[in-house]
């Protein structure tokens, strides 16, 4: 079981450790800068942080001394010729009777570092906006864009080589900083077989590779998109975050606009297991027990048109039977005047420990699988990510 919580916030990276019987946060680094995600590489023990400097762009940072000091890592850059199909917005200079623009081919530049995943020894993966999966095979000394995914047919084909098909099923997310572009926020390497990688894209869906990233296929069968003309469309899904059971990776979970979805066959099919009558439907993060893939935790919100707690009361929902039933876990959490929103990377578990953080700067910990909670800190900056490490 991990003993340290890594917290990425809008104003820096915090480490939280239990000393003297209390969980105590300490500012570790990146003071004043946005930190989208922080995690520890389980192989090398290096801490990695995905920064979003407001003025200076997205930067990777790392610490090899447990967070005492941080330094810029080798930076991620889109290679020359990386292009994508973007939807141009009407511009100030466009005459009111300008013809429709359609999609345009746009040169890719790094807008956001969103998620960091770890594979076998030395392999580090970073998900970005616009829609890039960057890989390192040397412990993060250098990164390369995964071109088979970038050139996938679902996003218009090989735009390095030519004009492609002119059609993309990858849409955009307002989580991008600067423009409406797709983003990769979930990267899962199968602990049994590092050649199997699952990623999730806002807004396209889930894709899987079984050959270490050489080829990719959509894995959205059973997903429902209540807001699209065809709810069962292959693409256009907005998985908020996808997680797997480490000990039994065929069990995968996600939560999105259209509910909670569970797969017990390695994302080959998904099944909606929401319980909207209990308030378990819309939300962002999901955590999965490391041994029992049927056990998962969520922090539900009211709905996608009211991204807030239900009636001002904060609770965690847990299932232990693959979503057939849900238990509200409220002990220790505020039940009135609480409007915490928990982002996709801001809930995590390790053994019996759970922690989550909210955009209102509250960080909570449970030491008993969510049955009871304690507030660790109530005045942190808006929290973007929580990981045990």
């Amino acid at each position, binding site marked *: 079981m991990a003993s340290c919580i890594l917290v990425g916030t809008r104003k820096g990276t915090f480490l939280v450790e239990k000393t003297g019987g209390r969980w105590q946060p300490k500012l570790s680094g990146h003071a004043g800068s946005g930190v989208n995600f922080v995690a520890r590489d389980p192989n090398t023990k290096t801490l990695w942080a995905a920064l979003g400097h*407001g*003025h*200076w762009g997205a*930067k990777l940072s790392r610490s090899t001394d447990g967070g005492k000091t941080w330094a810029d890592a080798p930076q991620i850059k889109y290679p020359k010729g990386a292009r994508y199909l973007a939807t141009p917005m009407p511009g100030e200079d466009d005459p009111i009777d300008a013809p429709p623009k359609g999609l345009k081919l746009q040169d890719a530049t790094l807008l956001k570092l969103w998620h960091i995943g770890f594979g076998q020894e030395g392999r580090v993966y970073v998900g970005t906006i616009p829609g890039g999966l960057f890989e390192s095979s040397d412990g993060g000394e250098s990164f390369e864009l995964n071109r088979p995914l970038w050139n996938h047919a679902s996003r218009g084909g090989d735009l390095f080589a030519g004009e492609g098909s002119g059609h993309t099923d990858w849409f955009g997310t307002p989580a991008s900083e600067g423009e409406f572009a797709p983003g990769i926020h979930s990267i899962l390497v199968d602990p049994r077989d590092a050649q199997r990688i699952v990623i999730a894209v806002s807004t396209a869906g889930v894709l899987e590779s079984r050959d270490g990233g050489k080829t990719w296929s959509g894995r959205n069968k059973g997903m429902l998109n209540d807001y699209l003309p065809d709810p069962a469309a292959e693409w256009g899904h907005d998985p908020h975050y996808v997680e797997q059971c480490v000990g039994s990776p065929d069990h995968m979970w996600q939560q999105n606009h259209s509910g909670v979805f569970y797969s017990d066959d390695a994302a080959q099919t998904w099944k909606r297991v929401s319980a909207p009558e209990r308030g378990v439907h819309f939300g962002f993060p999901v955590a999965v027990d490391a041994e029992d893939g049927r056990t998962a935790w969520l922090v539900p919100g009211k709905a996608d048109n009211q991204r807030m707690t239900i009636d001002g009361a904060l609770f965690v929902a847990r299932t232990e039977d693959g979503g057939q039933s849900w238990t509200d876990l409220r002990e220790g959490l505020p039940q009135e005047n609480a409007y915490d929103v928990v982002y996709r990377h801001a809930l995590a578990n390790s053994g019996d420990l759970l922690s989550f953080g909210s955009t209102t700067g509250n960080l909570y910990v449970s030491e008993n699988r969510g049955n009871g909670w304690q507030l660790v800190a109530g005045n942190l900056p808006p929290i973007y990510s929580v990981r045990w490490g």
Partner: protein
Amino acid sequence: MASVQLTRHLHEFFPQLTGQVLQVEAATVADAIAEVEKRAPGFSFYICDELGRLRQHVNIFVGDERIRDRQRLSDALAPDAHVMIMQALSGG
């Protein structure tokens, strides 16, 4: 030689440049950035994106004038030009 002065915000990331007004041989603003990059590797990616364009919330002045070419930073520098690199007053 042109001189280059940085906002102190950048000193946080490049402490080796703290307190310095850099003297560089540069015919254009792009040349000046390239010279600073030699002394502080990684600097240019803080100022510009992968395509060499000035980041949206960064400004560069030559003397009292904001540069005109944010795409390629081709604004010419006189031998005694003073270049200031700063961030926009944006954020929250």
